């Protein structure tokens, strides 16, 4: 069992280690690099691995007899609204020349940083330094690209799914076979999105559970799975612009609308507290399904008393991909890689080397297994610790039909609009059709040069 250090202690330890482990550094030139990070229990080693990466780089510099060393200053921000809010704050910092040398960010924002020239173009560097980057899954690089150029390094990946509570299903009268075959039936296209809502409704009606399907209460990726399932890819492959198709948007909003009308999703889901939502599902047995990502298990379910072993977990809970909207359709999932960006500063190559060392398989595995995130390198698959992390292997199966959110500078803004309309639908202020029209109107008002409307 891994005992995790709290983040401040980990940072302090690394800092101390750096101070004492490099004798003679004072005689060398010290290159100060700023690392922007967020206090976040879902990834304390995102900054931690950068600090260790700097240690490894310094050790190598020592061996090479180089006349400089690297020192990392961590600028740790509290978690205030997730990666979207972080991105907006970081963009303002870069705009006034105060951007960090290294930061981590959700992949869909990377082009917003790359377009104005805030980022170091890593395309050549990553190709010229295969010792760091060659083993990274090829498919993950796609999430770092803008206009065919790499502007970030993958840090992790994960899979989004519908978690469900088996105990509540039993309580509502579902047979063992129906419960255990739910994920298979979704994968086979037998259970549709409306079908899974119907199951949730039956359980709410026939058990003590108050909530059927809960989703995240803030802007983010999970609910976009539903839009993907109803056909919205949000990216026009021909023009590279954001694609909005009113009918498909209305279809997706219609599913959320029906869920609220049928008492499956509460009308105040978007106003709920994160901790409350997680408590309802993982702790209180008060929600049938929770639309979220696999990393929730390590970061939030286990701390709420959910068993860590595979058998214990699947006795109480299960998960399935997002069902297709029609019978026989393809299920869906969404993977949301976090990436390291490197600022286009004077020491960009040195910062990129730090990121390279931070991406070492063993360091990334430390992050993956302690927070149930999917790793980035083939070598990690051989690591016994990674193999023991059953949830990662199982979640990887969902990657077969996973989508990415589009890497477009204005997708974050579009997602904000999509989320606003979702709140309008669920609170009864907009119909599904009005919501789709709202997305088109607002996108046309806020990001008129980035959208194509069909």
């Amino acid at each position, binding site marked *: 069992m891994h005992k995790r250090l709290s983040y401040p202690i980990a940072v302090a330890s690394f800092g101390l280690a750096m101070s004492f482990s490099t004798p003679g550094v004072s005689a060398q030139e010290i290159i100060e690099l700023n690392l922007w990070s967020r206090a976040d229990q879902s990834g304390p080693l995102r900054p931690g691995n950068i600090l260790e990466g700097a240690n490894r780089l310094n050790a190598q510099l020592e061996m090479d007899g180089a006349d400089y060393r690297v020192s990392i200053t961590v600028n740790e921000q509290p978690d205030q609204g997730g990666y*979207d809010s972080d991105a*907006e704050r970081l*963009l*303002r910092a870069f*705009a*006034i020349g105060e951007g960090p040398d290294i930061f981590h960010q959700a992949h869909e924002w990377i082009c*917003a940083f790359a377009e*104005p020239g805030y980022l170091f173009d890593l395309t050549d560097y990553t190709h010229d330094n295969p010792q760091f980057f060659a083993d990274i899954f090829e498919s993950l690089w796609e999430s770092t690209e803008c206009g065919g150029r790499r502007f970030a390094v993958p840090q992790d990946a994960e899979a989004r799914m519908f978690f469900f509570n088996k105990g509540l299903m039993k309580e509502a009268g579902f047979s063992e076979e129906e419960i255990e075959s739910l994920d298979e039936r979704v994968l086979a296209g037998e259970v549709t999105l409306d079908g899974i809502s119907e199951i949730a409704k039956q359980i709410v009606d026939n058990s003590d559970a108050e909530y059927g399907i809960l989703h995240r209460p803030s802007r983010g990726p999970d609910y976009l799975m539903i839009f993907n399932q109803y056909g919205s890819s949000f990216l026009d492959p021909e023009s590279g612009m954001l694609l909005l198709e009113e009918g498909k948007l209305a279809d997706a909003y219609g599913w959320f609308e029906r869920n609220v009308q049928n008492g499956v999703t509460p*009308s*105040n889901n*978007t*106003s*709920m507290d994160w901790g*409350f939502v997680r408590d309802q599902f993982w702790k209180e047995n008060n929600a049938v399904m929770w639309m979220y990502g696999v990393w929730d298990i390590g970061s939030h379910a286990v701390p709420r008393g959910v068993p860590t072993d595979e058998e214990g977990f699947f006795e109480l809970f299960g998960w399935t991909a997002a069902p297709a909207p029609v019978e026989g359709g393809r299920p869906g999932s969404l993977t949301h890689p976090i990436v390291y960006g490197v600022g286009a500063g004077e020491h960009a190559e040195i910062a990129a080397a730090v990121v390279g060392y931070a991406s070492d398989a063993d360091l990334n595995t430390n992050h993956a297994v302690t927070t149930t995130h999917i790793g980035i390198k083939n070598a990690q698959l051989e690591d016994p610790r990674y193999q023991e992390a059953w949830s990662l292997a199982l979640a990887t199966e969902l990657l077969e039909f996973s989508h990415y959110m589009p890497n477009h500078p*204005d997708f*974050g*803004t579009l*997602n*904000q609009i999509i989320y*606003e309309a979702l*709140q*309008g639908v669920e*609170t009864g*202020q*907009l119909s599904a059709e009005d919501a789709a029209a709202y997305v088109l*109107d*607002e996108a046309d*008002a*806020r*990001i008129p040069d980035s959208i194509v409307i069909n």
Partner: protein
Amino acid sequence: MGAVKEEAVVRSNVRKAMKARERANMAIFFGPAFLIVSFFFVVPVIVDIAISFTDLGRELRITEITTKNYDRAFTGDRQLPGVIARTVFYVGATLLIFNTTFGLVLALATTAIPKTSGTFFRAVWLLPRMSPSVVYAILWIWSIHGGDTSLVNQILKNLFGSEKPIDLIQLEPMWVIIFANGFIGASFAMIILTSAIRSIPEHLYHAARCDGAGSLAVTWHITLAHLRWPLTYIFIWQTLSLLTSFEYILLITGGGPFRATTVYAIFIFQRAFGSAGQYAYGAALAFFLIVPGVILALLLWRVSKMGTLLQKPRIEVQ
């Protein structure tokens, strides 16, 4: 002759010294106010207007001088009519129900009861104003959130046997922000009107009583008649204040759910600092808040004849 000239020179020097002193006094007394108004009102207004004619966005770069922000405000922003309607309702309801009427009732009630009790109740009503806004907002959220542990739901459950908790932020978000702001606004009127009621000469009440006036007649013909000016002042001040209402709404509802509590000031914030970072458009929207603010203040000044309140008294009271 020489003495006269000398005296004239002395007088002239004295006059100059007095003038210089007057100027120095003026600088000392008006200087800080002038600087504060310049730096915190005039300069920001000029900066706002300048930005509103640019394309300043997320990248903090100006690439063109343009009127497109104003075009968009007048023709292209479909959210604006709803926001303006919501703002009018919010300002009107908060002003009429709480910031004037309820403040007046509090002032009348707490001056009509024994002094100690009156002071106590006024102190209680001042608590929201004295609390830091974040603490006040958290207390509101704690009181009305949709979980069964909120104060409202505890009361409904334990006193009325209600099974299902209610979520007032979902059900009546606009009234939540009207009440939250109104409780603070009411104390402002309460303090000013209490002071005004206390300054009404006691003998007027005695005279009215001698003439056989009842409590209502005394309140109407003496108390309220003397409160016209303070009420007018409160009305103007609070109207302008409510038009720029921001922090409690942002903290309690964030302008939601959806846009249910997005009043004009919140809307400016969302447009300017939302994910698209449309600073120039936000500046144009803010300009529309400055202009009606000034116009409304002048209009209300004129309509209410506020100027006569500030005139020199026609008789000198010894």
